[in-house]
Structures are given as structure tokens and as C-alpha cells.
């Protein structure tokens, strides 16, 4: 019998730190549990109770409570982020709350990875690869959306005036990170 030993490795291993003093820095987020949740508004309301964060019914919004965050990506799609190791517990809780109500819950903890971009120049920094208007008047605090960074799909969430959270598929991370390293030279 072959004994398999699988160790979870951070997608950030081997990447250089990015930071321009006084302007911007990119900080890898801690390992997390993530779910893609799909269903109607009734499903979202029931899942909210189990998850402990109200799943925003309005589009392009993030709701957060402690270590847990719910982001509305589409009219019937949410990204749920929770502390690492909570996958089984959360899946059970949400399944119990939903019962036979039609929905889909997919564990994407290991598909995504995330990091924070913070600093006075954070919006300018991200605008090097993102075509959205990231000015605070157009992209206010609490707004979140799926969008792109160059050719990679990301989820962008403004946590505060000068802090953004980026969720990206881990295989796209080196691509985005490389572009950000280049962009940091231009700030």
C-alpha cells in the first residue's frame, strides 16, 4: 500500500514580496475556505443564517463578519470566504439549512487564493491591469465584483478606501503577480 502524504502549499511560495514604501503593498491572505454558492434569493437567505453573514441580494456587494465574507457575483451566485479548515462544517450547516431547496454549493478553497493590496496608491496600482473605474466614487467601500486583471479573471473587493482584496485562481497568480511587480516599478 502506498501511503500518500499531501501537504497544502501556499500559491505564494517562491514569489517575491511586492511593496513600494509609502505607496502600495501586496500582502498574501491567510489560507481560507471558499465556496461557490448558487441558488435563488430564498436559498441565499437560508444560507445566510447557516453561514453567519447575510448574503447580499444586491449585486456587486460584499458583506463581512469576522473571518467570514459573502460576495455577490451575479444575481444567483455568491462567493463565500471563511476561515481555513471550516469546509466540512460549513458544508454540513448550509446543506442542513437548505434541505431540498434547489441550490449548488461547491468547495473551491484550493482553486482560489487571495491577497490584499493596500496603500495610498492601491487603486492606481490595480488600474494598471484592470479596466474598471476604481475611483472611490465609482467603486465605493463594500463594492465587490468579478472582473479581469489583464487576461486573468479576478474578484475585486474594496475593503476600505485604500485596501482592496483580490481573489484569483491560484494557477493565474504568478501571471498577475509578475505584472504587479512590473507595475510597482512605475509607481
Amino acid at each position, binding site marked *: 500500500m502506498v501511503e500518500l502524504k499531501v501537504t497544502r502549499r501556499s500559491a505564494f511560495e517562491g514569489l517575491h514580496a511586492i511593496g513600494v514604501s509609502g505607496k502600495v503593498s501586496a500582502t498574501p491572505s491567510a489560507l481560507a475556505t471558499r465556496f461557490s454558492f448558487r441558488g435563488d434569493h430564498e436559498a441565499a437567505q437560508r444560507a445566510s443564517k447557516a453561514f453567519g453573514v447575510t448574503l447580499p441580494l444586491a*449585486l*456587486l456587494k460584499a458583506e463581512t463578519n469576522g473571518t467570514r465574507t459573502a460576495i455577490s*457575483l*451575479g*444575481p444567483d*451566485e455568491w462567493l463565500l470566504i471563511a476561515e481555513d479548515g471550516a469546509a466540512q462544517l460549513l458544508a454540513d450547516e448550509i446543506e442542513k439549512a437548505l434541505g431540498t431547496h434547489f441550490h449548488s454549493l461547491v468547495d473551491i478553497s484550493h482553486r482560489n487564493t487571495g491577497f490584499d493590496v493596500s496603500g495610498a496608491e492601491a487603486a492606481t496600482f490595480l488600474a494598471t491591469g484592470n*479596466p*474598471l473605474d476604481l475611483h472611490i466614487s465609482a467603486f465605493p467601500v463594500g463594492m465587490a*465584483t*468579478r*472582473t*479581469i486583471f489583464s487576461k486573468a*479573471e479576478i474578484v475585486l473587493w474594496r475593503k476600505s478606501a485604500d485596501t482592496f482584496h483580490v481573489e484569483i485562481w491560484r494557477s493565474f497568480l504568478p501571471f498577475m503577480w509578475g505584472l504587479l511587480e512590473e507595475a510597482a516599478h512605475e509607481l
Partner: protein
Amino acid sequence: MLLIPCPYCGERPELEFRYAGEAHVARPADPMKTTDEEWAEYLYFRSNPKGIHIERWRHISGCARFFNCVRDTVSDKILKTYKAGEPRVDLKQFEKGAN
């Protein structure tokens, strides 16, 4: 950059969208009863107008919804977008001063 008004998310850059062909092409309800010509018509023939065209787009790197879009193929100007499932818009409203 061309901004496309997604009926769900509002105006968003075109890079987030994918084109998905002509809109309101309904699959025959009973394919077994169609003739080869009717089936070929459904599969391959599109209106391809020079001017106002109703087409499907998908906000793939956004809300991921399909929606319908009225676009002028000459000027590339987007005249209207509406959610999939809503009735086909009357093109008469776009005739005057569309270009």
C-alpha cells in the same frame, strides 16, 4: 474603451464580455418534425445585417449572465441592452438618427 451596459451590473468595459451570436434564434420545438431545410436554416443561417442587429452577449468576467443587445454594426454603437427572456425589442424606435 467601449463600455457595454450590462442589464445587471451597469456600464462595464468590453473586455469583460463575450459575444454569443444573433439573439432570438429559437430552437425548433420538435426537431423530428422539421425538414432538412428548416433545420439548416436554424443551424446555419443568420441575418447578418448592415445596420441594427439584435445579438446575445455574455458578461462572462462579471455577473456571467447572458443578455440581449441592440447594436448598430456600422457604427458599433450599442443602442439598448435587455435581459435574456424579455421580448424582442421593436427596432422601429431606433430607425431615426441611429447612425
